[in-house]
């Protein structure tokens, strides 16, 4: 079994060789701290600025509005805690959704323990936020809304421009966690009414450990990481020069290939969905069929549990991910799948396959062929399936 099929690109992606080569000098001979004043550091500083301006251009933002961080989680923490702090005199109410990444949800829960009030919006069965419900949740004390651009588990793309417009109509600062969307969907922050946007380099073939927060120049935000005067005094910490320069290259490549990658991934994604839903019985396909990331698929296989499925896929050389969390006495499956209305027992059997431009048609076929065998095997040892078959027989 020499097969290795990586279908977990929402977890992380492989660094592009061009990105790696771009970074290499800054990990080797060009090691200066870009904040230093000698010539040796100056070139590096200029390269970091180049990365900043090309990323800003990709977002439709000004260079001075892009701040580098350690990744998506830090950006989410900064956006939410920073605005909550700077606008605390104005109000204490924050609106988010039930399907956010934990970097947003746990940050909001933290703020709840510190006197803030948070509304967690419901989503529909496809994972979509209803703009009318969002508008209805806005109160005079609402200072911030944080709604993800695209969901990491089920791939649903939210109506961000519309939601941002509503926020602005009511004077509410609008943040979006675009970690899954950035580099995969064209985003223009100004046209889409986005005040704050979080992104991470490793989701688009860039290096791990570097991300960004776009902050509209009109937004008042407190710092999260205090210390030195890096990032125009807003985010302390020695500049991750190699990471940022690699991030810049990854964005340049994503920009150049975006439509081509989308078309390619969509073709493979739809083939995977088609084969799984027609060749395997009792499967639930999760997320919106159209308003969806081009690389995301998510299924629930009834009568079986996700971890078992993952281990058997792994032993067949296939990397995927599960929303199941058979990890504690609480045993709660994915909060996203529960939010779209799936019962616990079905949500436990979820699997996410996320593609990339490196995925081949053969990978998809091999995965489905293997999946069919594994699902069959696990169902044959499932008491739930046994009961289901007996019930059907009697009926």
């Amino acid at each position, binding site marked *: 079994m020499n097969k290795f099929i990586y279908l977990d690109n929402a977890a992380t992606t492989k660094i592009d060789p061009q990105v790696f080569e771009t970074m290499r000098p800054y990990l080797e001979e060009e090691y200066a701290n870009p904040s230093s004043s000698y010539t040796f550091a100056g070139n590096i500083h200029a390269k970091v600025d180049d990365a900043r301006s090309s990323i800003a251009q990709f977002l439709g933002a000004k260079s001075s509005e892009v701040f580098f961080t350690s990744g998506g989680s830090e950006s989410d923490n900064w956006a939410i805690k920073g605005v909550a702090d700077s606008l605390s005199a104005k109000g204490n109410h924050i609106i988010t959704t039930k399907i956010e990444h934990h970097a947003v949800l746990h940050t909001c829960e933290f703020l709840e323990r510190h006197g803030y009030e948070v509304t967690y919006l419901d989503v529909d069965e496809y994972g979509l936020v209803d703009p009318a419900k969002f508008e209805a949740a806005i109160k005079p004390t609402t200072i911030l809304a944080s709604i993800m651009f695209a969901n990491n588990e089920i791939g649903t793309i939210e109506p961000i421009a519309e939601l941002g417009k509503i926020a602005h109509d009511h004077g509410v600062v609008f943040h979006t966690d675009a970690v899954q969307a950035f580099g995969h969907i064209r985003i223009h922050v100004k046209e889409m009414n986005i005040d704050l946007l979080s992104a991470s380099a490793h989701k688009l073939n860039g290096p791990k450990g570097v991300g960004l927060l776009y902050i509209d120049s009109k937004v008042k935000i407190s710092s999260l990481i205090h210390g030195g005067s890096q990032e125009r005094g807003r985010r302390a910490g020695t500049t991750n020069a190699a990471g940022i320069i690699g991030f810049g290259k990854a964005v340049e490549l994503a920009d150049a290939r975006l439509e081509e990658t989308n078309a390619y991934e969509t073709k493979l994604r739809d083939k995977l969905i088609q084969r799984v839903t027609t060749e395997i019985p009792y499967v639930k396909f999760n997320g919106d069929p159209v308003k969806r990331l081009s690389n995301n698929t998510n299924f629930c296989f009834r009568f079986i549990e996700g971890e078992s499925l993952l281990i058997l896929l792994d032993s067949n050389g296939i990397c995927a991910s599960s929303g199941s969390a058979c*990890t504690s006495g609480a045993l709660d499956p994915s909060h996203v799948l529960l939010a779209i209305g799936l019962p616990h027992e079905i949500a436990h059997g979820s699997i996410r396959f996320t593609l990339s431009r490196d995925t081949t048609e053969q990978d998809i076929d091999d995965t489905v062929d293997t999946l069919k065998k594994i699902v069959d095997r696990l169902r044959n040892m499932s008491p739930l399936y046994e009961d289901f078959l007996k019930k059907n027989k009697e009926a």
Partner: protein
Amino acid sequence: MSQVTEYSAKVMDHFSNPRNVGEIEDASGVGTVGNAKCGDIMRMYLDIDENQVVRDAKFKTFGCGAAVATSSMATELVIGKTVQQALEVTNKAVMEALDGLPPIKVHCSLLAEQAIHAALWDYAEKNHLVIEGLKPPVNDIDETEAFYQMQGE
């Protein structure tokens, strides 16, 4: 979250090649414990002869890798044992036989112990027997004292 790297070789073996999967028709005793909401259900079938010796055991399990492995090991441990000895196959015995479980999966071994007890209870009821030390079966392990002591791990 995948547990692959945290499972012992024995757990992986019993998960990948589970022993005694299936059903026993007209079993002497059948017990089902756990619930789908929590993600684990075990069903244990026992074939017990007239001398109260477990002749055969089979299982079906809905659950994670550890749930399948503990079920498989539990069947191996009870086959050939008397009813009284089978009752003494504790969750600790199942765990030890598997070279341990990750802490967050210890509850699976409790489920296996309870599945044996539930099947024995069913056997006792069908045959109007009293098995010394056997308590009425629980629907799920969160009703057991051991689970309470583990504080829900």
